[in-house]
């Protein structure tokens, strides 16, 4: 495995939000086809990592490097990162009333096709694909006509994220707390969708607080993120250990200022 070229390489990443350092020296190497789970307590920087990798405004990289497929990810605009194959499934997908889901999905697919030098997909062909994707994630076709995520339940939003993933076929998917707010049935649907997309040339970062999701999406590696860096890595059994013991045993002695706070 070590001979394979890495898909994502993060080296000594430091990043901050509004001058507050959140990521404090993070290293991660992901090869094609691998599923990495990132677990950690609240406030460890789990969601921040996804935002930093996708290039969200206000999330500043202070030092370190990130390459996707050998290219400098941090130099790219958000949309170019997506076109290069990065996909972030949001914990809280944004509602956009007035923009239909179908229009949004087609614009996304077209933008990425265009980046690859392909023509826009015809509306008829796209509708077929989108309907098939709806079916796969168990969303009624009527959701294509509704505003993006508008009035969707938590589970429907997550399934809508999954549908975007199916249509965009990214190389690297970051699932940010995809399990939050899902009941067990919805969780299964989402997990099955993710599993159906696992392949030798697609990798996943599964960010989660709980081990439960990992019963359904089996990771190759589990990392524990605490205070902005990875403090322990292991295989799937690490997740079970965490479930049993919590995070406290992995965290360093709290710093003085945190004690005071």
């Amino acid at each position: 495995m070590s001979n394979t070229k890495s898909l994502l390489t993060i080296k000594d990443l430091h990043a901050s939000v509004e001058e507050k350092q959140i990521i404090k020296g993070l290293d991660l190497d992901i090869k094609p086809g691998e599923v990495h789970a990132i677990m950690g307590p609240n406030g460890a920087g789990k969601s921040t990592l996804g935002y930093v990798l996708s290039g969200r405004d206000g999330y500043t990289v202070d030092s370190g490097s990130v390459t996707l497929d050998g290219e400098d990810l941090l130099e790219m605009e958000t949309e170019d990162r997506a076109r290069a194959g990065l996909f972030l499934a949001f914990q809280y997908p944004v509602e956009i009333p007035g923009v239909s889901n179908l229009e949004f999905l087609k614009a996304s697919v077209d933008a990425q096709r265009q980046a690859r030098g392909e023509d826009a997909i015809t509306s008829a062909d796209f509708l077929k694909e989108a309907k098939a994707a709806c079916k796969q994630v168990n969303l009624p076709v009527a959701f294509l006509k509704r505003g993006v995520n508008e009035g969707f339940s938590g589970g429907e939003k997550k399934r809508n994220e999954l549908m975007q993933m199916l249509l965009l076929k990214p190389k690297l998917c970051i699932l940010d707390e995809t399990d939050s707010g899902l009941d067990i049935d919805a969780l299964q649907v989402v997990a099955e969708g993710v599993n159906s997309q696992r392949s030798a040339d697609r990798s996943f970062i599964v960010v989660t607080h709980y081990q439960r999701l990992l019963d359904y999406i089996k990771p190759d590696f589990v990392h524990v993120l605490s205070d902005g860096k990875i403090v322990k890595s292991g295989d799937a059994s690490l997740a079970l250990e965490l479930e049993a013991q919590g995070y406290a045993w992995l965290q360093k002695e709290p710093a003085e200022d945190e004690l005071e706070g």
Partner: protein
Amino acid sequence: MSEWLESAIARAQGINDWLAPKRAHALELLANTKWPTRKTEAWRYTPLRPVERTQAKVISDKVNLSPVVIADLSAIELVFVNGQFDQAQLAKALPEGLSISLGSELGSAEKADALSIFSTIKPERHIFGLVNDALAQDVVVVSVAEGVEITQPIRISSLLSQGAESHTRVQVVLSAGSRLTVIEDVQAQGDSFNTAFVEYNVAANARLEHYRFALQTGSNVAIGGSHFNLHDHAKMNSTIVGFGSDLSRLDTDIIHAGEFADAKLNAMYLLDGKELFDLHATVEHAKPNGKTEENVRCIVADRARAVFNGRIHIHRDAQKTLAELNNRNLLLSDKAEINTKPELEIYADDVKCAHGATVAQIDKQALYYLQTRGVSRSKAQVMLNFGFINELIDLMPNAALAEWIRPIIRERFAQMEVK
């Protein structure tokens, strides 16, 4: 008083027709009206310089112009060309229960009815409404008989050639229990000046579906109004779409003259360049149990200026009124301007009345979300702007009109982004 108004008054003196008493009354009021300045509240943000400087002239020679074709819309066409009613463009046979006629050609009883309504729904405070009273040459009266539903929409088009001045006036009467759809549209070719006013009398249990498109841009001056009188259980649903021009001013007045009337007004305007659009919407709840829902959305780019004045007046007797006014604005540049003023006057104590006005820039979270899917920032902006307006377009009851206006608006957003 301005030179322009003086010459308008002078031109109106010679007209002697069935509306003579109304015209004389308007002239009398005009003689006592001060030319609006920045100190005149109703015109505070809308300077009248483009009117003072207009070179537009009345063109009396016949010009052939026809309204734009709207796919899938089969309308009864009521066309004014440079202010003259073009009877040749009106269908020879109208549906039973519908009549469209020059007021001057009505029988004496109908004429008396028309006269009793003329200029009673449009408030006298509109200076250009008075100008229109005095100068509108061909006044057309549309009426629907009791209980009749006219399925084909009527489209009132005011078409202007380059440099033309026109004053058009229509009266629409829906008898009790009738149903009608009316589309108002002005299409001007530049350097023009027009006033276009329509008064609607909606009798008990009648239903009016109404659209007003003010899409002329550039060097046109367009001032007009749509005024509605709602009787018991009458319903209206109005959609206004406006682009700006050198000066575009629209007044709507909705009068709840009967109980249990129901009014919906959705207005959207999209301004670019140095355009100006001013919407003054007034709702008078004079009777109890009325309902009004108003949504006004505006997007202003570049150095354009938008004005919105939304007045809701709930009279002392108008108990159990439900009135809602929502105004949302998006500014696309630092130099763009929006002047918005909700004005609620409530004299009844058992009413529900809500209002809100927001001015914002584009939703950054939504922009980021679209970008994470590969959509470019500029394309994402167009999509979000469009979405903001599209919510109201989705509410348009007439599908053919919605399908027609969507690409026009999309095109306008794409242009806004280029700059």
